[in-house]
């Protein structure tokens, strides 16, 4: 029986393939481009879920930014917060009370009205075990719940459209955190209706309404006709997966894809050669370098860490390996951050000085150490392990022998976070909410050893500054605090500070009104149109 079936299907398949070929001759380019009024955004991977508080990966975020709105949003093209689903807000002088006045006449895609009750039900979903839609009962949760609401002691509605949050300690980044895509406001009615399956059936208030998700293929969305920010210009929005970069390039050139979310910078020369494509760039919210184990000899000597910084020519690496799409780190913060100190100059390339510092610290020529590299490109380092190889070459010139070991990302993370690893390692970070605390404290704060402070670097004066920075409500005071922190970290050099990659996206010249955001998310898609 089995045999008859397969023989028949075999015949059918082959016959079909042959007739398809002749038809193809007759109708060139009949299927070459995406249908009209459909914006196709290409991505490299499949989303893992579409519940903003439950999943963390960028691919899911790309889609959720179109489906959900947050209480706050980012000013287009920046990480400065501005009112989103909240029409306006007030912060009390002591920094402990935040009052949000909600936008009225807004509804979720399922028709549920958005108001203080809906918002509070949504926050109960995250924080209250007794909530019937408690998120931890729906499956694993990766999200930013503690990160955002860790300092919140109460949240209440003072009227139908006003919500008040009380904090136990001032948490300056609270507003920026609320703007993240990961704090998108979900329809409590839909969360109740779908339960565990909500992450496959997202319902928000955003410019696009979720229609269908075909795993490892595409996510299909339709314009939200009643969007409070105005009806989207394009009716259909499709996030389509192109796992192979070369195939992605062809799709973009052919008009099958319009915006390439995960543009491969390796293919940049080919992209630049096509005049129907545009390359958008923006300073990225990312840093990348090489971590040094600060509790292990000889790296417990600051002179050795500084020497390693002087030994590497970052500008040459940026030019040769990153096609010029990265900027040398002159400070531990990326240039896109608002408290970035432009007066700092980083570590210029100076191999003579590096050799002198190494000699002074007693490191003999021929010193040998391992460098652990992840084996695939990362958002903050599109060339992946090649960075390790470049650093190896420069350090060899000052008499240090580096053995680069490439491992798969999961293995890499467990090793560098084991608190026992004694070698050098590639390290990098992409900002979450655009606040300087999210770079400096996360990567160099003693309380984050060994999970995100992987070099196990600790400086008590710095840790005290981070506490002050979180509590201060004055913008100017925070800038001063983080600028002082940058000086300390730069001097102590727990990383070889390499570079900040630019965000790069290739788009078709048919796309109008699209703007990059440092967080890489697709905000304000309602303003995008196809010529």
């Amino acid at each position, binding site marked *: 029986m089995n045999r008859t079936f397969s023989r028949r299907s075999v015949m059918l398949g082959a016959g079909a393939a042959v*007739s398809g070929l002749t038809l193809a001759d007759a109708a060139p380019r009949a299927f070459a481009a995406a249908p009209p009024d459909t914006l196709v955004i290409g991505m490299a991977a499949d989303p893992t879920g579409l519940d903003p508080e439950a999943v963390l990966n960028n691919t899911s975020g790309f889609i959720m930014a179109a489906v959900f709105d947050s209480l706050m949003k980012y000013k287009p093209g920046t990480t400065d917060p501005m009112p989103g689903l909240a029409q306006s807000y007030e912060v009390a002088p002591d920094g402990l009370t935040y009052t949000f006045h909600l936008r009225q006449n807004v509804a979720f895609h399922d028709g549920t009205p958005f108001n203080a009750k809906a918002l509070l039900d949504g926050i109960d979903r995250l924080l209250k075990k007794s909530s019937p839609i408690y998120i931890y009962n729906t499956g694993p949760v990766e999200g930013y719940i*503690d990160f955002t609401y860790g300092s919140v002691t109460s949240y209440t509605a003072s009227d139908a459209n006003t919500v008040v949050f009380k904090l136990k300690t001032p948490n300056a980044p609270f507003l920026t955190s609320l703007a993240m895509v990961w704090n998108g406001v979900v329809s409590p009615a839909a969360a109740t209706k779908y339960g565990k399956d909500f992450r496959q059936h997202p319902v928000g208030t955003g410019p696009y309404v979720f229609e269908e998700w075909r795993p490892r293929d595409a996510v299909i969305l339709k314009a939200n006709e009643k969007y409070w920010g105005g009806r989207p210009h394009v009716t259909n929005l499709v996030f389509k997966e192109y796992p192979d970069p070369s195939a992605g390039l062809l799709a973009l050139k052919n008009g099958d894809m319009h915006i390439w979310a995960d543009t491969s910078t390796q293919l940049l020369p080919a992209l630049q050669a096509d005049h129907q494509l545009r390359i958008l760039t923006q300073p990225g919210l990312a840093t990348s370098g090489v971590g040094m184990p600060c509790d292990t000899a000889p790296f417990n000597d600051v002179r050795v860490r500084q020497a390693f910084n002087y030994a590497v020519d970052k500008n040459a690496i940026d030019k040769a390996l990153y096609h010029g799409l990265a900027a040398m780190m002159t400070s531990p913060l990326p240039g896109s951050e608002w408290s970035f100190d432009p007066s700092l100059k980083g570590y210029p390339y100076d191999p003579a000085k590096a050799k002198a510092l190494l000699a002074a610290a007693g490191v003999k020529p021929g010193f040998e150490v391992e460098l652990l590299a992840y084996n695939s490109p990362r958002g903050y380092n599109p060339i992946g392990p090649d960075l390790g190889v470049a650093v190896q070459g420069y350090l060899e010139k000052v008499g240090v022998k580096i053995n680069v070991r490439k491992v798969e990302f999961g293995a890499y993370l467990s090793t560098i976070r084991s608190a026992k690893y004694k070698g050098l390692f590639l390290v990098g970070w992409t900002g979450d909410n655009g606040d300087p605390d999210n770079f400096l404290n996360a990567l160099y704060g003693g309380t984050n050893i060994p999970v995100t402070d992987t070099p196990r670097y600790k400086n008590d004066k710095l840790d005290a500054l981070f506490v002050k920075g979180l509590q201060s409500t004055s913008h100017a005071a925070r800038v001063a605090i983080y600028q002082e922190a940058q000086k300390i970290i730069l001097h102590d050099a727990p990383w070889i500070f390499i570079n900040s990659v630019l965000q790069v996206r290739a788009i078709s010249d048919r796309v109008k009104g699209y703007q990059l955001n440092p967080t890489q998310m697709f905000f304000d898609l309602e303003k995008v149109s196809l010529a």
Partner: protein
Amino acid sequence: MLLGVSIVVFVAMHLLPGDVATLLLGDRATVASLARLRHQLGLDQPVLVQYWRFLTSALDGDFGLSLRDNRPALGEVLAAFPTTVELTVSALALAVLVGVPLGVFAAFKEGSWLDTAITTPTLFGVSMPVFWLGLMALLLFSEVLGWLPTGGLLEVGAPVPVRTGFSIIDALLTGRASLFWQAIRHLILPACTLATIPLALITRITRGEVLASMHLDHVRTARAKGLPEGRVRRAHILRNALIPIVTVIGLQLGLLLSGAFLTETIFSLPGLGRLMVDAILARDYPIVQTGALFIAGLFVVVNFGVDISYALLDPRVRRR
């Protein structure tokens, strides 16, 4: 056998360094969030307990939820399977329908320039890197000539209400000829790419086997009896050569059904190969285990089919 497969896969997956919680939370994880997620995923249990849980629920037909996206693992595997079947069947059909006649023809023309013209390209065929060939085919037929689409199963946003997972059947069910052609056109490049290696292999094996049978004693006897040459070739040479050919086809079928990762990646097809490789990289144990069991089961079925076909082809096997 399936138990053995499940043990090997389980042990292998757990020997790999790095776990799914670390991968999911990425650079942003904290000690507390890692611990909580591991607990939610059941990864804080001893490995033996995890295996026992998987085994006992699998026997009840519950293969668990994907650690990555929280969907039923069996459902994900079954959803990816139709694409793989479609791809495999069309590629193998192409390979068999072209490869067997070519091989037979080459054998009967042994030593002639026609034989060389067929066997030389097959040498390249068996050693051709699929990803290179696929990309070149995309470049030529999609980018330069613009005849065929760049990837996927159907055009983006095609109106297909019923989803069996088989794009051709889905398109047929809509009753629209244009959609049907669309589905076929999307399949041409990946099927041809995937067919190269089996095609070359089947051609070479067929040629070799036919050549070997041509010189057997019974063939000489048949000719001596005065049987017409056509009948000698069909009944005495070809039929005798078929058993090894069917074996190779069966092996290829099993291999292709377990997923063609490279072809699926280049042509953006949501098949079993990509599901499995993604799951291995993400340490998504339930998917890997379910997928491996499923593939092992498929091999059993395919081999059984091949064994039955022996009986149909060879009366001696039937008698046993």
